[in-house]
């Protein structure tokens, strides 16, 4: 149905795609996999009409076409469901589905017709909801389905799903996957982009991998396995990525008891972390992992719980004390919490430790520059000078700046929240190595991650959270994706399936 031949795309001097081939037939589900920055989004944005290719040809049903703009893509029957939800939550379901294409009578919005037209589409998706329901009342999973309903209402022939399950619970993901198979039998061509390789394995007829903007191979039916997909994506074996684990000391550095967070006031987390240990924290999105990290660091208040660093009890909700005791957090969202994008690398690196670079209240610019330059080298941040704004750095380099600003302060407890999200493999490896080096100095490390590979590859133990509470801790011998998921999901949810 759709064929892309030798597609290349350059942004200035950066080559995002070079000579990529891709095709898909009606009634086929193609899994598109690749690391962040491999060119998946660029390729799909070309299909969605967001970018025009520098060179190459696009054929639909054998006819060459040009896709200029999102409207043009819609007319060609291409529908793109983005990773972030693009719904207006102050409008009802029907209004969202037909946004910009509302039925009108004498220029007035015809609410009745709107709801009636929406109903059969929702039925098709097994979404038994009143089309008049406000989107803000829906769960993430239902909102994702409304996005797909929007695509169906445009009579799409090709559906692009970009990380559709990243914010869904297991049950919701399952519903979505079933829906994908159903649409497939109805003759829809579906491109399924996901980091959750088990889902790709489950749903895809064929898998296409991209690496560094080039085709990195293809797997047909029967060849789609977890490990083969990984090695195609990264071009090497998994064992090469994760550094060897260091031994763990017996000293307890951090212990927390009956800790709850504002989001989950009745939650209960208790665990210890030893010197040199990397404790992974797994859980579904919304399980309260980041909230726990923020409450431990003190940027968020928490209703109850004790926190103890090397025998010293900390006051809850006091960032200053946490920092003074050597408990640091490299937050989940580096752009809104980790960095001040408009400020320079130097200013970002020293923002949390300015008192070390100041005499009374005056900043000692000389020593500040010296240290920032030193850290730039030490953490391998690729930047011409320390004076450029961090907004001009790549994701990996930005993350290195975040890490450098905390890891150089001799942390006793370092919490990493999604340390490698959106970061390419090279920078990722460097970050892993830096983490292990830090652990070797006797620091207790907590690593929150949604990346299974990373959790399994890096942690000494994995704590699993569910609804604000700790549902179990796995030792290295018991590590498996299944064991983690069992703890992460409520038992009744599994029974429900």
């Amino acid at each position, binding site marked *: 149905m759709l064929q892309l031949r030798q597609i290349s795309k350059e942004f200035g001097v950066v080559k995002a795609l070079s000579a990529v081939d891709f095709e898909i037939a009606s009634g086929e589900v193609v899994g598109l996999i690749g690391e962040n920055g491999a060119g998946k989004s660029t390729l799909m944005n070309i299909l969605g009409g967001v970018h025009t290719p520098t060179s190459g040809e696009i054929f639909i049903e054998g006819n060459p076409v040009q896709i200029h703009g999102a409207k043009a893509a819609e007319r060609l029957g291409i529908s793109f469901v983005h990773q972030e939800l693009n719904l207006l939550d102050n409008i009802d379901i029907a209004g969202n589905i037909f946004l910009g294409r509302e039925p009108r009578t004498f220029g007035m919005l015809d609410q009745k017709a709107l709801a009636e037209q929406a109903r059969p589409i929702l039925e098709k998706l097994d979404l038994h909801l009143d089309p008049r329901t406000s989107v803000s009342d829906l769960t993430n999973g239902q909102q994702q389905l409304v996005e797909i309903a929007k695509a169906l209402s445009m009579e799409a022939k090709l559906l692009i799903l970009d990380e559709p399950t990243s914010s869904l619970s297991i049950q919701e993901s399952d519903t979505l996957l079933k829906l994908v198979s159903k649409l497939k039998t109805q003759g829809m061509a579906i491109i399924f982009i996901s980091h959750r390789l088990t889902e790709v394995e489950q749903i895809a007829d064929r898998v296409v991998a991209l690496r560094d903007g080039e085709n990195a191979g293809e797997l047909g039916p029967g060849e789609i396995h977890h490990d083969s997909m990984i090695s195609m994506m990264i071009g090497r074996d998994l064992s090469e990525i994760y550094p060897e684990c260091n031994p763990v000391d017996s000293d307890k550095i951090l212990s927390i008891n009956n800790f709850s967070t504002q989001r989950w006031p009745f939650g209960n987390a208790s665990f210890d972390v030893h010197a040199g240990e990397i404790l992974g924290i797994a859980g579904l999105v919304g399980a309260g992992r980041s909230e726990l990290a923020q409450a431990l660091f003190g940027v968020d208040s928490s209703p109850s719980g004790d926190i103890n660093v090397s025998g010293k009890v900390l006051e809850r909700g006091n960032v200053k004390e946490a920092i003074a005791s050597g408990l640091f*957090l490299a937050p989940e969202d580096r752009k809104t*919490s980790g960095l001040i994008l408009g400020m320079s690398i130097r200013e970002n690196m020293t923002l949390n430790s300015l*008192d070390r670079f*100041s005499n009374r*209240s005056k900043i000692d610019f000389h020593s500040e520059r010296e240290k920032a330059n030193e850290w730039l080298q030490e953490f391998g941040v690729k930047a011409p000078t320390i004076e450029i704004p961090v907004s001009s750095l790549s994701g990996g380099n930005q993350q290195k700046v975040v890490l450098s600003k905390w890891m150089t302060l001799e942390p006793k407890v370092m919490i990493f929240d999604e340390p490698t999200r959106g970061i390419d493999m090279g920078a990722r490896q460097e970050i892993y190595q830096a983490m292990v080096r830090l652990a070797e100095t006797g620091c207790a490390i907590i690593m929150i991650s949604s990346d299974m590979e990373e959790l399994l590859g890096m942690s000494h133990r994995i704590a699993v959270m569910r609804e604000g509470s700790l549902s179990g801790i796995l030792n290295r011998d018991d590590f498996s994706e299944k064991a983690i998921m069992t703890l992460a999901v409520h038992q009744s949810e599994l029974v429900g399936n």
Partner: protein
Amino acid sequence: MEIQKSSFFNRYRKEVCLAVILFFVAFWTIIFSRNTEASGFLQSLIESRFLSLRNLENLSRQLGMYGIFSLGMGLVIISGGIDLSVGSLMALFGTVFFFLLTGSHAWIPGMHWSFAIIVVLLFSVAVGSLHGWLIAKVRLQAFIVTLCGLLGYRGLAQTMTHDTAIGYYDAKYDIGGLEHLLNGELLGLPAAFIAFVLVSGVIFYLLHLSVFGRYLLALGRNEQAARYSGVNTVFIMGLAYVACTLLTAISALFFARYSSDVTPSIHGNFFELYAIAGAVLGGCSLRGGEGTVVGIILGTTVLLVLQNMVNLLGYDSSFSKVITALVILGGVLVDRFEIWKLLARSKTS
């Protein structure tokens, strides 16, 4: 990677642009206010009315008074907020100051001028703390809190004076020293200007050399990230509002003396807007996190020299508002479309 080079011009482009504008406006005014009877062109320029001692003295006094509170406004804008109450506070502080000198209000005791100044400054710190607390801690919007101030403080001043003017010539104690302090001269420079230079120095230190300034710029750009770095954002943000009202009070003392009586219904009208205009023209962004002391000073100076030009050259004074508006709009447009880059490019090619 030429964009990433931080040359002098790139880093201080806003200041350089403003200085150029300032130069042209001043030059224009000098030429058209030149003394036509002088011998020789150069001599006629030197004897121009713009460069006359009286005009320069007047201009520097104005700059002193406007500059002090504009710097305060600059700090608040850099923190990502706004203070609309500056003009009304100008009236309230002036009124309270004169009542303190004369003791003619039932609730306000008369006192020596030195105590009166201290009381006004303490009062301003209290008002600023209230603003800071409501905005930084209670998390009300700055626009709304200070809008209430804009209405309330002027109304309060009008109530206190029964909506008439209040002077200070029947002061209870000797005010000879006060005259020297607020209206005197040092080395031929008006007291307000000298106060302004001192204030500028302090604010320059605070904003560009101290930890406080770094924190203020950081929280203006991204409050959450600043908090995640352990910055006490509530305290720093609150401090910006305290500084703004304190500087307003200092300026209010000079203004009250300069106008010799305070009519609360018109005293300091629209001053908050002049301050915002000066700060924005000087390169502060209302989104916060951006701005320099030199920029704010230059922005304020440009506005005042424009006003001076209109007065000296006898342009229709109503029209001066239009000119001011166009200059501000032009300045922001130049910044928005990064026009200096075009200049730099045409120079290199």
